[in-house]
């Protein structure tokens, strides 16, 4: 029971944060609401027994990436958004398409939830770091190496782009 209450609370926080991200005019506010979303997601991960991932989520996402965003927003200090009539197609075709789709997926999930069965905290050592580490460095070693190369390239790209000309 406690889990369900916790899940609903954090879920609502998450959704509220996401909506706030859309509603806010100034990017800094939406950035912070995104941090809230990420933190609440981390807690939901804990609910799902994924301790290591929750910690990583906090450290990497909330702690590093969002800081980067806040950093850039502060650096550029571009101010609030202005309402410009950009592309009509985005509004009149994109949005309805997504709504319809989300609706169908949602309906399907609700409809099929009985078949799917439940989720619980699970055994204590499920989300254990050493279990993930064993998997990561043994079965998924190649992707791990590839992503490390990816990160290297990203860093170099960012540095080159970020450098002031001359």
């Amino acid at each position, binding site marked *: 029971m406690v*889990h369900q209450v916790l899940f609903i609370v954090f*879920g609502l926080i*998450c*959704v509220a944060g*996401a*909506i706030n*991200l*859309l509603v806010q005019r100034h*990017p800094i506010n*939406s*950035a912070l609401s995104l941090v809230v979303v990420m933190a609440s*997601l981390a807690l*939901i*991960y804990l609910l799902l*027994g*994924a301790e*290591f*991932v929750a910690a*990583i989520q906090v450290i990497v*996402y909330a702690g*590093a*990436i*969002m800081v*980067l*965003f806040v950093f*850039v*927003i502060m650096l*550029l200090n*571009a101010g609030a*958004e202005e*309402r*410009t*009539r*950009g592309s009509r197609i985005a509004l009149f075709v*994109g949005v309805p398409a*997504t*709504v319809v789709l*989300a609706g169908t997926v*949602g309906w399907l999930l*609700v409809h099929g*939830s009985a078949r799917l*069965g*439940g*989720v*619980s905290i*699970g055994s204590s050592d*499920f989300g254990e770091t050493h*279990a*993930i580490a064993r*998997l990561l460095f043994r*079965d*998924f070693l190649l992707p791990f190496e590839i992503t490390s190369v*990816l*990160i290297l*390239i*990203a860093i170099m*790209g*960012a540095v080159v*782009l*970020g450098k002031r000309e001359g």
Partner: protein
Amino acid sequence: MIPLSWYLILSAILFSLGVFGFLLKRNIITIFMSIELMLNAVNLSFVAFANYWNTHPRALPSGDPIVPLSGHVFVFFVMVVAAAEAAVGLAIIISVFRTRETLNVDRVNLLKL
């Protein structure tokens, strides 16, 4: 005992909110953030399924059983990629700002026909 579909629904909602942000917002950084939101939504469903596979072991169509923790590893990789993307993306945004003096997406339309 929370039904898996709740998590998936939450993930779907977050994802579609991300898509709305991606479509409706004017500021490039905000668009970028909504992409991050979408990625997070996906991570959520990954983790949810990881737990689900742990309790309801399933097999891949190719026959060998699904490793429950692979969900977490995938989340890990998604984060890594998201980090890389954020780095490069923000660098680009800075250079765009430096040349175009604006972050408004509709103003950045030099490719217009």
